[in-house]
């Protein structure tokens, strides 16, 4: 009897050990390799030229207050065609050198460093010490021209294809109050691209 109990005890121990090892084997058998691939889309755009003197394409380079100027090579005070801006009416060019289509957004910072530092009104209209700005892209009608804000502008051009480029321009309405000095101020035009 005692001998049978010993045998039974050994069997139980073996069974328990067997049960303990079994799941380990099962788990080992169910493991698979996970490959994580990190492939960022590096979206960028290049714009040329890198500077624009307002009223300096065909004019004197000096600007009057309460006047609207265009980055139009055909004339600094000549509006692009409202039924669809032409390439020849756009001073800037944006090119997409990447492998995906992108959307373009244009912003202009406040004018600074001069005797009259106008602030971007962010609504497209000029006011006292405020300038207003719009962006137009080639082919767009005036209804599609987008307010150029100091930040958070709407998309100005959608779906610029990979390797493609598009011409665009800016419309700046100068502050309504008189200048107080002759020192030039400057602003940074930033074109932000995002995957379409």
């Amino acid at each position: 009897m005692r001998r049978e109990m010993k045998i039974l005890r050994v069997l139980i121990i073996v069974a328990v050990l067997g049960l303990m090892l079994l799941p380990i084997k099962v788990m080992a058998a169910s493991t698979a390799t996970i490959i994580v691939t990190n492939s960022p889309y590096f979206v960028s755009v290049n714009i040329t030229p890198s500077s624009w003197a307002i009223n300096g394409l065909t004019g004197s380079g000096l600007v009057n207050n309460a006047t609207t100027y265009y980055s139009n090579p055909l004339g600094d005070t000549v509006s692009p065609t409202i039924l669809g801006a032409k390439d020849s009416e756009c001073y800037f060019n944006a090119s997409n050198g990447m492998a995906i289509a992108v959307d373009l957004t244009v912003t202009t910072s406040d004018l600074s460093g001069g005797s009259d530092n106008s602030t971007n009104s962010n609504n497209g209209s000029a006011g006292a010490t405020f300038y207003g700005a719009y962006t137009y892209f080639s082919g767009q009608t005036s209804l599609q021209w987008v307010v150029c804000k100091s930040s958070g502008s709407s998309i100005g051009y959608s779906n610029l294809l990979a390797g493609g480029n598009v011409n665009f321009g800016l419309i700046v309405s100068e502050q309504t109050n008189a200048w107080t000095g002759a020192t030039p101020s400057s602003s940074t035009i930033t074109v932000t691209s995002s995957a379409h």
Partner: protein
Amino acid sequence: MVVMLMPVAVLAGNTATMVNAPAYSVGITSFTVTYVSDTEVDLNWTYDATVSNVMVRAKWGSYPANPPNSATAPSDGYLVYYGSGLSAVDTSMNFNNNPDTLYYSIWGQKGDGSWYLIPSQGSEESREMIGLLLGFLAVSLLIAGLVLKKSWVMWFSIPFWVILSIYMAYYQSMGFPASAQHAFLFIGLGATVAIGFGAIRMQAKPANEHHDDDNLDDDDASTKIYKAERKKYRRSS
């Protein structure tokens, strides 16, 4: 099992600079006021294409006041010039009689007759007081050196003679004829140098060569020793 994680990095694109140069003008682009003499001040100016005439006005003690609006011509002070020229000579003053400062303002008048309200300005004052002050310092130091028998005081007047001569040469006139100025400077400089050399020579003599006690130079160490010994001798005798 393969998991593909494909983020889209959105980066700011390129930038360009937009330059805004205000077409701001006060009409007058330069204005120079030059002292010629106590009775003459020369005025020169330039103006841009928006100006058809200019008006120059002068006033003693302060700048002539601006007109109240662009439709009103300036009227404060006295009129020096009105027209389309680029220079004028004001001989109405006499700084000898009035050593105050004379202030000038010039305004541009546009083709439509309206006036720029921001004038260019300049001022002049008599140079005579500065010249006289320099001369006074130079002569005073020379006399002080003679009276005190201090050669270094006389030498100290030399820089003032030099500054005075440059000042006179630059401003041409101080109300004296040029020959009188030159003679004044020549005599002053010559006297200073001569007296300075004489003082040095006197100091260089040994103490036992002094016979006239009153003319001894106190700076001379040998003189001090001589005086001290003389005093000691007198006490003992």
